[in-house]
């Protein structure tokens, strides 16, 4: 394998170039394709604002598709990064960004908001955020004070809290008989259509510092893969690094969940995909997951908008239908 022979700088350069090109390509496609077809010259003119301020296509591209593509990119990047961090932190390949009960809590909060009839923003989003934060705190309180076996019980507590939340969700769904049911189900399957320009921008400003923090924790993440004891021998303050990673990751995943619902599969598979392709070094994997995960969700969202002849399908359907076969193919080829 010649990839692992490349020095780190060279590998990072390749990831930056290929990932950057992929992201630019996805952004361009995502902004120019949709239910309002137009030729590429027309699209380019509208994209650059040459068609005049009143042009309908300019408005669609910059006011409708733009924020949505930005949101999709941010959600994809965040979930991929979240999965990567949790898989390393818990040393468990099945960990995903929702593993610590974030999804269950957010869903309960969001459904309550929708049932009460609040507006998607800020009411439902806020309740979802509060829900995910309270389940997360619950999990952390349950596992506080344990040292050696913390990872096992952290994982189990997360799974249990999530299971309890699922039961609550089922209960709420079973007593809901009216037109709000489709809305709720749609949210549970992941929904990027609720985006508005200002919200995607606010999210960008909150998430970027989180990304940076995790980028600087790449080497500690590598050390954590060696086990806690060895990581300590190599000079890492394991408790502090784990806590910081846990908090930053949970915060950004909660923010994303309350904006877009439960977009499944991205956080589980994108990190594995890149680990298969690029090896275990987090200094390479973090930028790859940010660029690649963002592009992946933008393209999946595009498919979910363009494929159905009418309306849209949930983006979570596309992420799994495209991602699972791709991953299995790569897994078989790597053996």
């Amino acid at each position, binding site marked *: 394998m010649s990839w*692992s022979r490349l020095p780190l700088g060279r590998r990072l350069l390749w990831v930056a170039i290929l990932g950057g090109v992929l992201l630019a390509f996805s952004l361009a496609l995502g902004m120019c394709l949709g239910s309002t077809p137009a030729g590429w010259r027309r699209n380019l003119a509208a994209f650059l604002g040459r068609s005049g301020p009143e042009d309908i296509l300019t408005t669609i591209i910059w006011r409708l598709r733009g924020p949505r593509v930005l949101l999709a990119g941010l959600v994809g990047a965040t979930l991929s990064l979240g999965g990567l961090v949790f898989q390393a932190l818990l040393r468990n390949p099945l960990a995903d960004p929702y593993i610590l009960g974030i999804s269950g809590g957010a869903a309960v909060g969001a459904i309550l908001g929708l049932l009460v009839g609040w507006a998607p923003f800020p009411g439902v989003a806020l309740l979802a955020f509060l829900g995910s934060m309270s389940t997360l705190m619950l999990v952390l309180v349950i596992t506080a004070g344990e040292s050696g076996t913390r990872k096992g019980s952290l994982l189990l507590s997360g799974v249990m809290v999530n299971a309890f939340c699922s039961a609550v969700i089922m209960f709420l769904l079973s007593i809901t008989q009216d037109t709000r049911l489709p809305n709720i189900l749609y949210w549970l399957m992941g929904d990027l259509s609720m985006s508005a320009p200002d919200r995607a921008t606010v999210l960008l400003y909150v998430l970027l510092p989180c990304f940076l923090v995790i980028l600087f924790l790449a*080497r500690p993440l*590598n050390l954590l893969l060696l086990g806690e004891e060895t990581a*300590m021998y*190599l000079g890492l303050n394991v408790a502090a690094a784990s806590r910081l990673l846990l908090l930053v990751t949970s915060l950004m995943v909660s923010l994303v969940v309350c904006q877009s619902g439960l977009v499944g599969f991205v956080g589980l598979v994108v990190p594995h995909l890149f680990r298969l392709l690029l090896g*275990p*070094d987090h200094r390479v994997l973090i930028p790859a997951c940010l660029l690649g995960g963002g592009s992946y969700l933008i393209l999946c969202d595009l498919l979910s908008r363009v494929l159905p002849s009418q309306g849209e399908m949930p983006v979570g359907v596309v992420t799994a239908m495209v991602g699972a076969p791709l991953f299995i193919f790569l897994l078989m080829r790597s053996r």
Partner: protein
Amino acid sequence: MPPAVWVKHLQVSYGKQPVLRDISFEVPEGAFFIIIGPNSSGKTTLLKAMAGVLKPRQGQVEIWGTSVRQYGRKALAQMVAAVPQRAPSDIQFTVQELVLMGRSPHMGWLGLEKPQDLELAREAMAITDVTHLARRPLQQLSGGELQRVIIARALCQQPRLLLLDEPTAALDPAHQVNIMDLMAQLKAERGLTVVMVSHDLNLAAMYGDQLLLLKEGQRISSGTPKEVLTYEQLEQAYGCALLVDENPLGKVPRVSLVPRRFLHP
């Protein structure tokens, strides 16, 4: 000049179970110090307490005059390297990547290695005889190869004090001699202080300047191999008869197992 390691009235327990009961000793700088004793006598626990990863119930460990728990982890790792007994076997990094991680405590907060880090890693791999494995993933190595790679990582850390937990347990005789000779050489040439846990009494006799014999968390004896490896003290520690005579290679004791049929013919 304070000693490299100064263990003062150390008590460690797992839950209510005491593992080390009031252990005190000193390791002078530049010594080859070997801890011996039967299974579950607290050897590994003692080593972990010296590396600062276990919190003692009472007493303390001082490294060059400062309590281990007062050092930050990074500052401690710049001076003390440790080779644990078992390494996780599911690591996907290559040998060179793992050895380079030994530079972690010396790296800046960006965590990027410099050319001299790579040079040190190459040197560490050369003296532990793993250069030919540099590109191999760790999962593909044999137990002995993995052990040597982990020693290379510890040497790459450029420690003043090296703690090793049974580093030769998985090695064949040739590599046992190589690793032990390497430790003796580093001690002589660089003034490295080596503290090792070993089950091999003859290795301890031949290489150790000072031995510490433990049983059930208590010190049975400490001193030079000649002072520690006596018939009475070994029988007290291990609860079985062992033959002690002089090693023909040098003036150190030699310990042999005594099968029952030789005791009661």
